[in-house]
């Protein structure tokens, strides 16, 4: 494996700028790594020709000293982001062969800033899943393995391809999306850093919609600094997304290394679950000790509606999904299965085009929105959502700067191990992350330790709206203090 793929995004950026390295060399090294890692099934589509073209243009700009903030840096793109002229499938059969005639706002900003696209990354179908096993194109295999075992593990989901590709050093960073934990949970499972920014921070335009009031774009990278660099390019207001917020994008990287002395960190007692493993509790305590050691003040807080977040999510998200996914009807794009009339054509197309989990969620969403059930389910869930948000507002109102929790209830599990009998078993993976989406807040997952099998465990920090800078400062303290974990050596 080439040394060039071991660089962090920030190191590569600095080496390119100092002309110690060319974008072409860096891209070629990553393209070779991508090709060699096909057994992991991280990429749904490799775009080597485009990558080399973009790298060449980057080298020309770097020579003229006109390079952008991400000039020449090879990235992977979750296949939920529409990319002009490059197949975008959302890992669904129903969008097989769909070639967008437009570019998502977030990716267009990455290219504006000079980044190089290596290809499109695997995910759970329509981002619905926590293990990347619902992809119509097969599961992603994590580069991590339990010590002394070669059982194939999941990288988490839905941004499983993004997290696995970053952990396997196939790209310097990757785009991801998070509706209930889809950035933070896979980041925690793969020892990477993932941030879901505040709702409205990044434009959702051109990203295949799942649940529009919860979806947010964000990066997955190997370091906190790299995440800060990528988010700056991804964020910003966009006239094409009316929920994107008109607010200047700060230089997030400048927040790295800022003192956290005197910052108030809330520890919510409701996150201490019955039957929580001792390892997760110990991880949490380490996080507390590291932040306290850097001068932060630790306070106990209460978020009383934590327990209701996941059930409310499994009403709101499927409801919005059932509406968003109504567009896949076999008429305008994607798969069509013929029928004797238009209704049969719709029904057969959708039965064949959507996988099991997606069909299940559309049906749940349809049910909770249907006449006679709307008030009992959907309206009640939206009211509970107000209560969840209020819990956070009260904590922040008392001067809490950020909240520290575990990112996931366990380390990564094996492919096929969870959720086959009861879908709810899989849903419980998002128990610590989903509150953040319900309240629209920013949350970051950062590696904090290892479990008994040598697998990474992550901590989560939750911030005030639009205070991603605080999260980067705090996460970097944890990153520094946490035991260093070597990246998995290549076995694939």
């Amino acid at each position, binding site marked *: 494996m080439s040394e060039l793929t071991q660089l962090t995004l920030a190191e590569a950026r600095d080496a390119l700028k100092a002309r110690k390295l060319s974008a072409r060399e860096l891209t070629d090294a990553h393209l070779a790594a991508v090709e060699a890692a096909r057994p992991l099934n991280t990429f749904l589509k490799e775009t080597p020709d485009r990558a080399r073209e973009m790298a060449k243009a980057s080298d020309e700009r770097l020579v003229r000293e006109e390079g952008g903030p991400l000039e020449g840096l090879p990235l992977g793109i979750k296949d939920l982001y529409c990319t002009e002229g490059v197949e975008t499938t959302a890992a669904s059969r129903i969008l097989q*062969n*769909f*070639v967008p*005639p437009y570019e998502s706002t977030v990716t267009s900003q990455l290219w504006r800033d000079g980044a190089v696209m290596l290809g499109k990354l695997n995910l759970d179908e329509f981002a619905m899943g926590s293990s990347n096993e619902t992809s119509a194109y097969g599961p992603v295999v994590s580069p991590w393995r339990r010590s002394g075992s070669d059982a194939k593990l999941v990288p988490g989901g839905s941004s499983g391809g993004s997290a696995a590709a970053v952990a396997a050093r196939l790209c310097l960073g990757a785009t991801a999306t998070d509706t209930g934990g889809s950035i933070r949970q896979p980041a925690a499972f793969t020892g990477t850093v993932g941030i879901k920014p*505040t*709702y*409205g921070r990044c434009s959702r335009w051109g990203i295949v919609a799942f649940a529009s*009031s*919860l979806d947010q774009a964000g990066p997955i990278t190997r370091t906190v600094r790299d995440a800060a660099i990528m988010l700056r390019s991804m964020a910003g207001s966009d*006239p094409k997304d009316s*929920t994107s917020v*008109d607010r200047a994008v700060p230089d997030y990287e400048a927040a790295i290394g800022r003192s956290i002395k005197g910052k108030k960190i809330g520890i919510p007692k409701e996150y201490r679950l019955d039957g929580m493993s001792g390892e997760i509790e110990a991880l949490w305590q380490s996080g507390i000790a590291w932040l306290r050691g850097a001068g932060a003040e630790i306070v106990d807080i209460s978020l009383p*509606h934590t*327990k*209701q977040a*996941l*059930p409310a999510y*499994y*009403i709101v998200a499927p409801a919005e999904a*059932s509406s968003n996914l109504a567009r896949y009807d*076999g*008429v*305008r*794009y*994607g*798969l*069509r299965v*013929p*029928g*004797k*009339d*238009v*209704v*049969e*054509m719709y*029904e057969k197309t*959708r*039965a064949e085009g*959507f996988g099991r989990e997606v*069909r*299940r969620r*559309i*049906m*749940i969403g*349809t*049910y909770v929105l*249907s006449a006679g059930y709307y008030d*009992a389910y959907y309206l*009640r*869930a*939206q*009211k*509970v959502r*107000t*209560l969840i948000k209020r819990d956070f507002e009260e904590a922040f109102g008392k001067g809490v700067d950020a909240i520290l929790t575990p990112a996931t209830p366990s380390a990564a599990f094996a492919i096929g191990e969870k959720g086959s009998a*009861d*879908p*709810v078993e899989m849903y419980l993976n998002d128990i610590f992350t989903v509150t953040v989406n319900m309240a*629209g807040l920013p949350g970051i997952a950062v590696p904090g330790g290892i479990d008994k099998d040598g697998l990474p465990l992550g901590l989560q920090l939750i911030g005030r*709206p639009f205070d991603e800078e605080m999260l980067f400062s705090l996460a970097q303290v944890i990153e520094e203090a946490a035991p260093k974990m070597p990246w998995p050596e290549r076995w694939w």
Partner: protein
Amino acid sequence: MSVDTATVRRIAHLSRIAVKDEEVAHLQTELNAILDFVEQLRGIDVEGIEPMTSVMPMQLKKRQDEVTDGFVADEIVANAPRREDHFFVVPKVVE
């Protein structure tokens, strides 16, 4: 609340998803597992609580009422599974 097989079929039809007879029982079990799970919300007091309608409190943006896009019919139909000129082709709808 739990759903019976007739309800499963009705939801599937409302969702425009064809289900085979042999799938109904299994779907019923899965949907009921999820509905059981969300049942926890029933005990929460939501009296007088406004439902969340906007994640971040903000005024909906407005813009000038003018044409900013269009005249791209070729692109719009480019991905259609069946098309003729600039039309999407569907099975006969009107007798």
